[in-house]
């Protein structure tokens, strides 16, 4: 359950998008990946759930090189919520969740009784059991995301990879989704745009800029105003939440310099 990225570099079409990234996540931790658009967050995550192969370096889970395993074997250890919305065929919610059992199934058989029980259990855990018979395409954004989390849970992974899981969700659903994945069990690696959400829900943060890690550590140590100014081009003002006491960041834009 320990995830280790060992000087991972990624190349696409001859361009190096990620440079020598080292990252560690201990069992059960929620690790956030933050950085501006185009900094390589999604590319790095795609290496972890094997949609891409790193040009150099290795992605290890409990010491095993994920890219040396078969695709099925890797999918039994790592589940993912990629950032894609394919909307061509109208599967039911139950069918979408059952796809998570695919790496565990053998031979010709369809999902068995055990698979159905797991799928029902996962839908209950995400509070979506009433959606089972609905068409996936007819769901709202928040419902879809919960169903996809259920699909990832029935994969019974040791690592859950999330690419912007809160995109397009209203604030209540954002908080719900992050609370859900935190109590789900597996180690979590997630890309997040909202720095306050990242600070509030992650044990560790890694900051990516132009494909390189420029800072890492507990959120309070990483999200310093000088780093945020340098990486995101914003002036951050920390304020204490009057009720919860948590530190929140307020942002305003620093005028971009010509070379930005």
């Amino acid at each position: 359950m320990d995830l280790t990225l060992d000087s991972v570099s990624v190349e696409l079409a001859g361009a190096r998008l990620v440079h020598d990234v080292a990252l560690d996540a201990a069992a059960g931790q929620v690790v956030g990946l933050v950085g501006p658009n185009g900094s390589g967050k999604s590319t790095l995550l795609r290496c972890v759930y094997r949609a891409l192969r790193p040009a150099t370096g290795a992605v290890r889970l409990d010491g095993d090189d994920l890219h040396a395993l078969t695709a099925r074997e890797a999918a039994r250890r790592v589940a993912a919520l990629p950032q894609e919305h394919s909307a061509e065929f109208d599967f039911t919610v139950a069918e979408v969740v059952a796809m998570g059992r695919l790496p565990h199934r053998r031979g010709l058989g369809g999902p068995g009784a055990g698979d159905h029980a797991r799928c029902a259990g996962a839908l209950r855990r995400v509070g979506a059991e009433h959606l089972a018979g609905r068409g996936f395409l007819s769901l709202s954004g928040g419902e879809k995301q919960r169903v996809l989390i259920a699909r990832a849970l029935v994969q019974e992974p040791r690592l859950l990879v999330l690419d912007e899981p809160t995109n397009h969700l209203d604030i209540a659903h954002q908080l719900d989704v992050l609370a859900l994945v935190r109590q789900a069990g597996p180690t979590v690696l997630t890309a997040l745009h909202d720095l306050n959400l990242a600070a509030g829900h992650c044990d560790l943060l890694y900051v990516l800029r132009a494909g390189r890690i420029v800072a890492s550590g507990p959120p309070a140590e990483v999200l310093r105003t000088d780093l945020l100014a340098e990486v995101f081009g914003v002036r951050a003002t920390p304020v204490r939440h009057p009720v919860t006491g948590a530190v929140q960041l307020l942002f305003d834009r620093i005028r971009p310099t010509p070379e930005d």
Partner: protein
Amino acid sequence: MSTAPVGGGAVSPPARRIPAAPLAVGLAAALLLSLVCGVALGAAGIGLPRALRLLAAGLTGGRLEAGEAAAYAIVWEIRLPRTVLAAVVGAGLAATGVAVQALVRNALADPFVLGVSSGAAVGANAVLLLGAFASLGVWAISVSAFGSALLAMVLVYLAARTAYGLTPLRLVLTGTALSYGFSALTALMVFAAARGEAARDAMMWLLGSLGGATWGSVPIAAATVLAGLAYLACAAGRLDALAMGDETAASLGVDPDRLRRELFVVTAAVTGTVVAVSGAIGFVGLMVPHVARMLVGAGHRRVLLVAPLAGALLLVWVDIVSRTLLAPAELPVGVVTAVLGVPCFLLLMRRRGYSFGGR
């Protein structure tokens, strides 16, 4: 069963679906009955009881009465191979339609979108119009059509391939573009042909016909289609994953590029064979997969159980209509598939809340 959620915009009812297994049993029974009808009905009336008796006589090696020889020959040498071939072709087109729609992740795709039918037409018309491969005799059209279909698919594959593998949109665009090229070649051959009947022959071939069915062509076509169906049945779970997107497929342990290459090869072999024995029969490969999804939902295990049976059933009846309606003249199969299929399809689509592409 399910309760409507609170809020969350428009609430659509759960999709009405028919259990796949009983439906498949029903379709299989209807198909068997239709095969017998296909033998009984035709220009020379044979009748159901007599058709059954003659079929049984052939199967058990029983004796025939003196006057039955002609009818026996019609049943066993002409109508049965033709009807069986119709079922095989219908099943093959429906199954490859499902495969191609998942392969290019596009509900508007059919087996011919990858250039296979227009490629086959070049080969078939080279024989029909220019007399190519005359040394192959009666096999010339089939062999030439199969060869040029495969050649067309190889060209599409090579032109569509990139360093990242086969991408759906590229495949569709390349297939469509090259199809225009192949069609132009066919048109050129028709234009240059010396015989006045050339255009009609070419047209007949393009619209499909099962008139050439013999026991020589049925076993090869049946074996290829069955092998294709077996492969697709094994790949059903992976097709579900692929339909959700490449990234999702990868995260579920399915290599999308490898699956797409496999699907491409299987589709090429099955459609190439089917087109070689029956011409380019349209509509079945596009619409039957959708009809199957309307009935049993999008899950490929169920769609691949129902679609081939429905395709076989449809084409058996299309063939019966095409050779009895204006008997002894024959209508092109493609015309009948459209006339029978389009109203059925529109009716089904409007009656059931079928949605693709989100609405």
